[in-house]
């Protein structure tokens, strides 16, 4: 029995929202990464900054996701992961992801992306081999989930730009903070 109410796929939402050519998005992201590499001069720092920028986006984007998807509430982390993969990715960047590799207690899984508009035209030069080019995505997921009371850790397991066959993000639930009642009973 599930209390989940909302779409099972983001296709209908994606086709109803206003869209732009993915190349504008891809090239703007490329320009952002390029600026960070120039400013910070260190690949690890760039990874950190991309994650932070993603987090900043995530804490804002979650409201749009909730408003447009009509997702009311997810029962558990498992359902949440499915919704991110099937509805979230589609609704914003037009691609569908799949969820695999669940651990036994349902607190850790992988989100696998076959396709990703951020990386069109991209190849990592030798000087940037340590770069997680799409690190902004992991930040977005972490930020968005934090706003609905789920503390997570998101790490890359596979990256096409590093020679893997897909993009794989591991999402680990660290803590689920229940919705807060602002006053303690014994106060």
């Amino acid at each position, binding site marked *: 029995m599930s209390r989940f109410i909302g779409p099972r796929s983001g296709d209908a939402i994606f086709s109803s929202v206003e869209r732009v050519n993915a190349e504008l998005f891809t090239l703007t992201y490329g320009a952002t990464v390029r600026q960070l590499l120039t400013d910070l001069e260190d690949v690890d720092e760039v990874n950190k900054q991309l994650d932070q920028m993603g987090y900043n986006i995530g804490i*804002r984007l979650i*409201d*749009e996701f*909730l408003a*447009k998807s009509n997702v009311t509430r997810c029962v558990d982390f498992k359902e949440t992961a499915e919704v991110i993969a099937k509805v979230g990715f589609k609704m914003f960047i037009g691609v569908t992801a799949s969820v695999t590799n669940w651990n036994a207690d349902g607190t850790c899984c992988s989100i696998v992306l076959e396709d990703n508009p951020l990386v069109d035209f991209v190849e990592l030069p030798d000087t940037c081999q340590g770069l997680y080019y799409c690190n902004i995505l992991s930040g977005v997921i972490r930020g968005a989930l934090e*706003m*609905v009371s789920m503390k997570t850790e998101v790490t890359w397991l596979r990256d096409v730009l590093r020679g893997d066959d897909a993009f794989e993000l591991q999402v680990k639930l660290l803590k689920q903070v229940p919705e807060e*009642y*602002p*006053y303690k009973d014994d106060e």
Partner: protein
Amino acid sequence: MAAAAAIYSLFIINKSGGLIYYKDYGSAGRMDTNDSLRVASLWHSMHAISQQLSPIVGCSGIELLEADTFDLHCFQSLTGTKFFVVCEPGTLQMDALLKVIYELYTDYVLKNPFYEMEMPIRCELFDLNLSQAVQKDRVALLGR
């Protein structure tokens, strides 16, 4: 300009109970800054208490308060931001209007690089689009 629907005022409060947006329409129920801040924090607490008092597990708080002289419709997003309108008793389509306002907020507030999260909303485009949304004929269309 077309007439506003029978709405007295609109409040947006952040998840800690701080008033981040207040707008009144027309003369009825107009209040000064202190009063509006008080209403916001009072509502924030009452809303939280109602969740606790409710016999239903997972209750998300008061959605409608009916009084002799006004109705108060409230919508709380899953992220904890509350939007509420105070309007003439029996005004229709307020839930749909709150949903529209939530969407305007995600567009013209959250996508504005100059807006700082949880802070008072000062965004010209939000004001502009909001004043269109609350016009009577627009609100009536929400029912279709």
